[in-house]
């Protein structure tokens, strides 16, 4: 536990009758970019709020830098920057004044404001009122706030939400460079697998409040295997038909996916005989997205 930047032990959060997060045990290594992946409503934001002390876990333990969050909240939060969903900024203040607020609380040197403005690419806009900023600039200002002081870890909740493609790319570049250039461990949540593939070294997949996978991107890649991808006219009927003949299949991204690649011809024949048109049939490697959808039981048609 001592070597881990973030470690949680069977953390559960219950809201009245609903269990938002169940027995989540995270292990975040120093210097990593840990992507916390899951569909909307999986419990990512709830977990992040618990890591920041904004919500109390119903049960389980949370430690950052080997310190218990309940007992060492102040010390942990002075080493942990955060950006939770939308950037929290005071629109009537300038970027520099916005940064002055956490700077005073963190007791960081004034020069730190220039440092983080430069990292966030906002050096030119320091004296500009934030109400004139684009969403991308506000998001970068939020990241600059998170970097103020001596931060060793960053917790970012959907940091590219609402950004245009250029803003997304800028933010990803910034985040990717943080561990190498600034020695910061990054824990970020996302529901976009493409983002994770570009940024992360480690992945945790959350589904319906439970951590269903945790490991490196390479571990995730190893789950790839060949599959049969079938495009049909009536997917629901086709799944039932194949099931009756003993072939398991799932509907993912509009295609039936079956792992029984050797039965391609038999499956095709069965579907055609069953009056279902087949417009696509191929043997492919399962994409990371499909692994993710499989893990999270999500079906995207």
């Amino acid at each position, binding site marked *: 536990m001592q070597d881990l930047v973030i470690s949680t032990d069977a953390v559960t959060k219950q809201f009245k009758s609903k269990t938002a997060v169940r027995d989540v045990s995270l292990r975040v290594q120093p210097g990593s970019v840990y992507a916390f992946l899951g569909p909307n409503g999986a419990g990512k934001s709830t977990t992040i709020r618990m890591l920041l002390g904004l*919500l109390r876990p119903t049960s389980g333990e949370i430690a950052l830098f080997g310190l218990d969050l309940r007992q060492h909240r102040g010390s942990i939060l002075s080493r942990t920057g955060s950006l*939770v969903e939308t950037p929290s900024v005071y629109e009537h203040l300038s970027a520099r*004044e916005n940064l002055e607020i956490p700077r*005073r*609380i963190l007791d960081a040197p004034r020069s730190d404001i220039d440092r983080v403005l430069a990292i966030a690419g906002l050096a030119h806009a320091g004296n500009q009122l934030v109400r004139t900023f684009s969403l991308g600039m506000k998001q970068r200002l*939020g990241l600059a706030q998170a970097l103020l002081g001596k931060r060793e870890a960053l917790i970012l909740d959907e940091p590219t939400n609402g950004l245009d493609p250029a803003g997304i790319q800028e933010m990803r570049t910034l985040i990717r460079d943080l561990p190498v250039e600034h020695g910061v461990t990054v824990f970020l949540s996302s529901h976009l697998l493409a983002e994770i593939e570009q940024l992360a070294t480690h992945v945790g997949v959350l589904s319906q409040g439970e951590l269903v996978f945790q490991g490196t991107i390479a571990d995730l890649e190893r789950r790839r295997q060949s599959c049969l991808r079938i495009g049909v006219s009536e997917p629901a009927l086709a799944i039932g038909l194949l099931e009756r003949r003993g072939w398991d299949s799932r509907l993912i991204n509009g295609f039936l996916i079956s792992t029984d690649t050797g039965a391609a011809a038999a499956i095709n024949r069965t579907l055609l005989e069953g009056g279902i048109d087949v417009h696509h049939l191929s043997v492919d490697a399962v994409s990371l997205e499909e692994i993710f959808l499989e893990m999270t039981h999500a079906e995207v048609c």
Partner: protein
Amino acid sequence: MRMFLRVLSTECLKLKRTLALWMVLVAPLVIILLQFAVGYKRAPSFTGDGKDAWAPMVRQTVEIWTLLMMPMFVTLETSLLAGLENTGRNWKSLLALPAPRWTVYVSKLVVTIAMLWSAHAILIAGTIGSGTLLHTLYPSINLGRMPLAPFVIPMAKVSLAALLGVVIQHWVSLRWQSYPAAMGFGICAMILGVFSVQSAEFGPWFPWSLPIHAVIANAKGGDHTVLASVGALIAGGVGCWEFVKREIG
């Protein structure tokens, strides 16, 4: 304590370019200008009667401020201050900073009280200025050198007696993250306060009528400033405890 002062300084910084800060000047100025306009219009009728014109002027100023303007001012200021965090959903980032939560709660309360007391100082200074100007325009009005005590002492009592209402309104503004809830509560409280002033049973105890009772001669219910101050300490402690325990979803 150093952390509290740091958080307090950030709360002061957040006031920059805000309506909340302008209101500290505008709210007492409205009363001062109103009093000046009334005095200017009635000036000829005062001429020559020789009575001290400060006493009615001060009494009216204190009463209008205490009964009407101050409750609205407190409601608006607490709502605007809470709105700084509510509007941008800033609570999550503010409370994810290493400052203990009580420092945030108490700092915002201190800022609200400081703004109220600053408004009182402006009201006193402005009333003296307006009376002096009236006296310059109409030398026959008996507005000579103003004895400060008859104005400062009631205003000091009002300042203390208002604390309980301020503390409650502060908690309401931070508890429900919407203007309508906080404003609605404040307006209802103000209306009840106006009506309960007349009530011998509830008036001396109702937080929003305590200030006016504190300046009414021979008012029942003991020392209203002490009552309000003790009540404010208790309500402030309970509100702060609730804020510290609150979950930020």
